[in-house]
């Protein structure tokens, strides 16, 4: 399953950075039906550059791999509006050893998505997709039994729902029925108008975080800096953590998923903050 996910990720951000096409990766090593050879994972792109640096162009900051400029999967020039984001992307490229593992480069993937917009959604469609998650928000879906889990959900999720209700002046509530909570239209309108204040790049990031955490409320908590990434991931995976505490943890599944979710949520949050900030440095006069 996860191998399929990796191929999906590679497909989303294909390693075709140079004009020469990727060598038929799976073909050489893959097993034919009667071939009898073992399946090996498709050959990955080797690290073909030594230095990663940043330069400033007209559109923003660009990444240089040796002397070549980085391009998106749709062959557009890779430009980011923010220097800190460019540095973070350059660090991602720099930290690849031997082979390039695209599934670890979350910020690069996010920037590519923002630049290419492969799903071709405009701002309104993105906001609608994001607010739609509220109807099936994780922290609003409660169980009735086992009682320990129900109480855990009440203790951990109620504060964050209360915070969201207070912060945005809306009514959300929670529900134990299968249809989920009944969200009034005014709540949705409030969130729609709040999300409309972010620019397109930040919205891509917000929608990404919501999709990963499966919760609009937790994502808003992250974006408003109310909770840390670790706490948000913990709240999102509350039932899994409960079961882990009960039955034990399987490292190659539970820890793997936890690290991956943390990486994605952190990347998305950082992306949103970097794309929506406008920092000015005010130098204070030293008064003697």
């Amino acid at each position, binding site marked *: 399953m*996860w*191998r399929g996910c990796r191929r999906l990720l590679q497909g989303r951000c294909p390693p075709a950075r140079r004009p020469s096409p990727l060598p038929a990766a799976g073909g050489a090593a893959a097993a034919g039906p*009667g*071939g*009898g*050879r*073992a*399946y*090996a*994972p498709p050959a990955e792109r080797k690290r073909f550059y*030594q230095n990663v*640096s*940043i330069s400033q162009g007209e559109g923003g900051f660009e990444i240089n791999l040796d002397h070549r400029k980085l391009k998106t999967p749709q062959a557009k020039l890779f430009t980011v509006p923010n*220097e*800190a984001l460019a*540095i*973070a992307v*350059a*660090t991602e490229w*720099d*930290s690849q*050893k031997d082979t390039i*593992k695209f599934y*670890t480069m*979350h*910020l690069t993937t996010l920037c590519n998505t923002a630049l290419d917009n492969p799903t071709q959604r405009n701002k309104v469609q993105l906001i609608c997709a994001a607010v739609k998650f509220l109807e099936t928000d994780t922290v609003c879906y409660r169980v009735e039994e086992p009682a320990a889990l129900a109480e855990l959900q009440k203790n*951990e999720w109620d504060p964050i729902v209360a915070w969201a209700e207070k912060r945005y002046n809306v009514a959300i509530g929670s529900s134990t029925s299968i249809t989920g909570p009944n969200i009034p239209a005014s709540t949705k309108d409030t969130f729609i108008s709040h999300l409309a204040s972010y620019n397109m790049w930040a919205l891509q990031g917000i929608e990404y975080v919501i999709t990963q955490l499966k919760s609009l409320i937790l994502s808003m908590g992250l974006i408003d*800096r*109310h*909770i*840390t*990434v*670790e*706490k948000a991931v*913990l709240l999102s995976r509350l039932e899994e*953590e*409960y079961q*882990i*505490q009960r039955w034990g*943890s399987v*490292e*190659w599944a*539970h*820890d*793997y998923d*936890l*690290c*991956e979710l*943390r*990486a994605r949520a*952190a*990347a998305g*949050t*950082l992306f949103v*903050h*970097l794309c929506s*900030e406008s*920092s000015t*440095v005010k130098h*204070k006069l030293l008064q003697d």
Partner: protein
Amino acid sequence: MRSKARGLKPSPSARFLIGWWSEAAAPDWRRARSGRESHKMAALGSPLGTLRGLLRELRHASAQAGRPYRDTPAYQHVISAFRAHRVTSEKLCRAQQELHFQAATYLCLLRSVREHLSLHQEYHGKGERSPEEVAGLVGFRLPQQPGGKGWDS
């Protein structure tokens, strides 16, 4: 518990939930001492701890690049950002909190990417076993057929 959280974690979910939540909820004494606005901000701990963790992660990330990590733009950016926001006369500095939250988020990103990669390498990176290996697992050996099996292989 706290030292385990700051350093390299071998298995994040090994700690019990109760201890983890009380850690994530707030080290109150630390916040009271730094005088930060408590009810709105996330519980992040001290900026020094975050900075130390970030530098450690950056060191890991550039370990194979050959260059010392102090030359990397990321290191210089982090150091200069922390230095710029260090001196402030206000006790509740919003920009400082924002920077600290960003730094903590970036630290979480670097750390979890590294752990994810190591888990992937350990458990999922090796592909399938060959038929000879599989036979060897249960103590068998595949028959040798010098003439080939009769079809293209």
